[in-house]
């Protein structure tokens, strides 16, 4: 009877939200990875992409997604609602940097201090590397991005921050170090038009998290597939495309430094607010 039921009702698909913490604009690659996951998980997988981190996070909170690959910043803000599934390994560590980049033509800028009164590009207000870290740095000096810079704007993607800097639209920008490094391999003509001024301390790499409604079985299944990717040829090739070394189960404490910055910045925001 049970077997019949399994056969008659196909398992309902796993919906995985993607954000631009990776280069999520490669449709062909995503199709291959989806097919891989479907094959390994033996159930349909749907990748869901939205214009901003917030939309994906909201979908996950509302249980409209089972999993999502999001930034550490929204994860620590929703740490009670989301379950940590896996953290990618980048250069064999589940860690990455935030880069401060300027146009390559700008050879003088050596720190954020030189960019005061300039136009600055952030990737997403819910990004750690693309927003929070820079806001935190300014907060420690008693500044807010909106007043420190002449103008700021969001590109809603790390890659587009690099494009904005490369085109000269903004004089400075905060970008995910992993994305910049990966782009420098795949699109050197783009990154060569930018210059990395400073690197942040290491933070926990954007994790794959699960909605609180997802069963432990499903979480374990995905964890298993992700951590084992490195061991089979197809998975290794996909990881290579992602410019990652693999996935580990990871520890929520990896993101403590982000949580600390968040607390500091939120306090400052309240203080400054009228």
């Amino acid at each position, binding site marked *: 009877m049970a077997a019949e039921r399994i056969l008659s009702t196909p398992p309902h698909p796993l919906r995985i939200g993607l954000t631009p913490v990776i280069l999520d604009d490669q449709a062909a690659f995503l199709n291959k990875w989806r097919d891989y996951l479907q094959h390994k998980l033996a159930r349909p997988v749907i990748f869901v992409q939205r214009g901003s981190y917030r939309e994906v996070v909201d979908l996950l909170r509302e249980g409209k997604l089972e999993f999502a690959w999001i930034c550490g910043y929204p994860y620590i803000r929703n740490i009670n609602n989301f379950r940590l599934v896996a953290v990618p390994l980048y250069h064999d560590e589940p860690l990455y940097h935030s880069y401060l980049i300027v146009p390559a033509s700008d050879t003088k800028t050596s720190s954020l201090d030189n960019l005061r009164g300039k136009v600055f590009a952030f990737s997403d207000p819910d990004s750690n590397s693309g927003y929070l870290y820079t806001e935190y740095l300014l907060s420690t000096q008693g500044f807010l991005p909106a007043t420190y810079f002449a103008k700021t704007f969001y590109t809603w993607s790390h890659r587009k921050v690099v494009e904005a800097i490369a085109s000269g*639209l903004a004089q400075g920008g905060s970008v995910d170090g992993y994305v910049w490094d990966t782009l420098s391999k795949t699109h050197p003509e783009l990154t060569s038009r930018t210059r990395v001024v400073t690197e942040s301390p290491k933070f926990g790499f954007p994790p794959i998290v699960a909605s609180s409604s997802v069963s432990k079985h499903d979480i374990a299944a995905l964890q298993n597939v992700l951590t084992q990717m490195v061991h089979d040829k197809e998975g290794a090739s996909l990881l290579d495309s992602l410019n990652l070394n693999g996935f580990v189960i990871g520890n929520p404490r990896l993101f403590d430094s982000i949580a600390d910055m968040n607390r500091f910045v939120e306090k400052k925001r309240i203080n400054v607010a009228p």
Partner: protein
Amino acid sequence: MLHLKHISLGYKIPLRVAALVIVTASVLASVLVYRSIGNLRDNMIANADSLGHLIADTLIEPILHDDVWRAFEIISIPLSIPQDKARDQGAEYILVLDASNKVFVSTQPDRFPILSDPITIEPGLSPIVKNPPELHAQVPVIIETRQLSSFYLATAIQSDGVRLGTLIVSYSKEPFEKRFYSLTQSAILITLLVLAVLLPFGVYWARKMAAPLLQLSETMNRIAPNLPEASEIELEETKDEIGQLAKSFKTMLAELKGKEQLQQQIIISDRLAAIGRLTAGVAHEINNPLGGMLNAISTYKRHGVQDPLTLKTLSILERGLQQIKETVAALLVETKTQTRPFDLNDVTDICTLVQSDMSGKQVSFTCDIDIVDAQPLSSTLVRQIIINLLLNAVHATQWQGCVRLHIWCDNSNLFIDVFNDGSYIPKEKISYLFEPFTSLNQGGNGLGLWVIYQIVQQLGGVITVQSDPDETRFIIQLPLQETHE
């Protein structure tokens, strides 16, 4: 300096036709280029205007949301479309100004950084900034000046009647100018080709048109000093005005020629008449004493002393006086003598008389007589005319030459035509031909033709002389005298 109006028609008409062809071809080419450029420009403006409105409408939300990146992505799209730079009139750059006319975003952020003042960067934009386009403008605002290397198309970005900003699309004139030059180049090439075909044709026709005029002018120039012969005039008588002119000109020349000939004849006959009067007067004056002298000699010979010396002297005097008498008699042509009418017997006599002269030179003589009956003309005079003419002809003709006599008549005239193939009479001598003592050959006394002239003149006839190399012909026309029945 050579003035245009002094140039020959042979050059002027072809030159004018060539100039006309060149001007026409150039004007046509210019008009075509001008129209093509106009069309190109209109198309470009229409495209730019629709593009401007499309972008302006799409930009409303990003501007309202202060989303610089979205705006940048939107305005980058038209420029990222690959274009054929030589042909397409793609935008050079796109600039979005916010409501306070500061740069909101541009496709050239290095040149127009965000928040910068566009006028300080590109002063050519000041007309747009100072006078931004109407919110609902029907016609696009185009800023174009000769000094600027670009022209600008401005569109208002508005939402709910509020100006959010201004979209400025800049178009470089360079591809436009390139297009203009390539169009001009091909137009010039085509014009030259057309000219290469039309010019030779035009010049050919023009020359053809000028040719009769030139001929006419050339012939007119030849009127002085001598009228050209009709055979020398090469004027085509066509139905057009020039042909008519040629015809009239020929008629005029012929009339002039006739008049000239008439004048010449009058002069000759006047002169001959004067000479005739003079010789007649002199002859009469000589004849009276001459008769007396001859009578005196005759009387003395009969009744005087028969001294041999005196008789010999008187004989010499008598012979001399006799010669004077004969000469005077020859000068004084007397036509009043009443003789029998001219008939075929006279012709036979004449032939017999001249036979010895003919055979002396082995001349082939043909006699062609078309009269049957006796003609009412004095046989003595006609015989004298014919004998004189035949003897002259025999003298003039070569050894073993050819002489022909043709006599015929119509209702009122007898015609005598004497032909020889000897040396011809030069033109300048013809007018003096009939004067006495004008001899063309060594032997004659120069009175033969004078006598003929006097006789013909007194009989009211006409002498016509045609003398060409190898053919000299005297035609005498004598009116038949009325027979008194």
